């Protein structure tokens, strides 16, 4: 490769202009380095996105050819009671998990905040649920949720005098049990983010407050929480979006049961697409999920802006 800086024959050219070859070579190299990423994104993100959008307008039939149905698939989703229940379960699960993890994460972060060396161990240990493989963790919880008296969780709550619960086996408790596991898994992550946020809180404010004789609660209310506000927004958005598209937890723990009581949007889409071969409706379900995510993100951003001003 010849260097572009090698003395080229000087032509009459204004000094700001590079020789022609240099002008297109720079961008070309940039695009070449980007090409692998863009190609993979194109094939496995963007094309599927458009295929999904396109197929959602068809009754997809493998051998008979696709039949244009317009917005009928979307109508099915909006009016079908199964979908209605699944959307509702998704929202409940997303909100419950998000709020539970944020509140618990904040409390724990405030409790273990500090530079002490031994905390390193506590943080590491507490963080383990976050990095572990969802499918395996869910199997473990499924066993712990064993509904009989000798199920592990029933033994544990028995110690504090609570009656055995049916957990995943009952329509009334299945969704809450899944939520419990999700909070267990989400809390340490939120805690770590809060800890990172707490480092940024101005220490001199605490000292000033201490001099003024402010109580712990007031310090928390007027200094710590306002300083953490951006962290709250980020966590809320991230967790709510993650919660809406929950799949593995439900698929492994209950697969939507018993009797559809814990069916969420993604498990329903999965069943429609891969078991009942209703690819058109399933694609439309994916688009609805995407729109819900988008709307949620926009709402949070607007609220955030309004609060900031």
């Amino acid at each position, binding site marked *: 490769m010849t*260097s572009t800086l090698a003395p080229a024959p000087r032509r009459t050219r204004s000094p700001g202009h590079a020789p022609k070859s240099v002008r297109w070579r720079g*961008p070309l*190299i*940039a*695009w*070449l380095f*980007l090409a*692998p*990423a*863009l190609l*993979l*994104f194109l*094939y*496995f*993100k963007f094309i*599927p*996105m458009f*295929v*999904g959008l396109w*197929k959602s307008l068809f009754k997809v039939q493998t051998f008979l050819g696709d039949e244009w149905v317009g917005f009928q698939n979307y109508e099915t989703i909006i009016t079908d009671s199964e979908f209605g229940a699944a959307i509702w379960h998704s929202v409940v699960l997303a909100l419950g998990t998000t709020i539970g993890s944020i509140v618990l994460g904040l409390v724990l972060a405030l*409790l273990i905040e500090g530079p002490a060396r031994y905390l390193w*161990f*506590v943080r*590491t*240990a*507490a*963080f*383990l*649920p976050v*990095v*572990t*493989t*969802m*499918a*395996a*963790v869910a199997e*473990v*919880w*499924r*066993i*712990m949720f*064993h509904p009989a008296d000798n*199920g*592990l969780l029933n033994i544990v709550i028995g110690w504090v005098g609570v009656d055995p619960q049916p957990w995943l086996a009952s329509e009334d408790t299945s969704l809450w049990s899944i939520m419990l596991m999700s909070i267990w898994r989400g809390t340490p*992550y939120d805690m770590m*983010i809060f800890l*990172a946020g707490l480092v940024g809180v101005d220490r001199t404010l605490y000292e000033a407050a201490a001099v003024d004789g402010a109580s712990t609660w007031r310090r928390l209310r007027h200094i710590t929480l306002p300083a953490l506000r951006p962290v709250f927004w980020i966590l809320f958005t*991230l967790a709510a979006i993650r919660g809406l*598209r929950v799949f593995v937890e439900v698929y492994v723990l209950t697969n939507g049961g018993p009797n559809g009581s814990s069916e969420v949007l993604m498990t329903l*889409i*999965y069943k429609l*697409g891969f078991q009942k071969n209703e*690819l058109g409706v399933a*694609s439309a*379900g*994916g*688009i609805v*999920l995407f729109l819900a*995510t*988008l709307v949620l993100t926009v709402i949070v951003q607007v609220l955030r802006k309004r609060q900031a001003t």
Partner: protein
Amino acid sequence: MVVVFTGPLVGLLISAFNKTLDPTSFSLWPDEFTLENFVQAKDKNVYLYLLNSFIVVGFGLLLQMLVSVFAAYSLARKKFRGMTIVMLLMLTTMMLPEEIIAIPLSLVLADLPVLHLNLIGTYAGMILPVGAWGFSILVMTEFMKEVPVELEEAARIDGAGELRIFATIIVPLCRPALGVIGVFGFTMIWDQYLLPLIVAPESDMWTLPIALRSLRSDEEVGIGVLLAASLLALLPSIIAFLAFQRQFMRGLTSGAVKG
């Protein structure tokens, strides 16, 4: 607190080596130590599934790191028209969760546009889609921006070509960031569930996480094999996390708190 968050995992560790095979035998105290669960796991192909997982994560991670480093070099060190759009596209892919496109992705994988390849039932079908990850690219880009321009200019004056500058100056300096994207990429690929579920219809290509479900419903084996397999599915990411903790925490805060 430590008990609450690690209890289930410790319980798994103990129960996987436990003798009783009663379906409720998940416990925090061992009855009788045995390796039998791991021996029986062999008959149930658990180690084949583990190998599949390692194949996918090995090649997937290698591809992902290469792709990220290349893309980041362009985004961090070059100025070109259309850069904003590319950045926007990357962010879009991060906003677009894989679950949403799972159904159409299965159609695309069955018949790749233009190339007309069927990737269903191939390792490539599990590896290629995880090859580009917006998070890795962005973390890498942020890091590469910090490398001083002077180094690059000096090399250029010495007559080094583009690829040489990239390979001998930029990439070695980015080793810490490679650790970050490596450990995150590893856990992300290892945790994949829907993708192998879509791509691997035959059990001989299953990865360990998706194989757990069939082990559970297999009535010939007790719960011990399921627990042993679950432990094997958890260990790699736990080990990766413990070994690269500092990089992990750095990536976590750089990825989340910014903005």
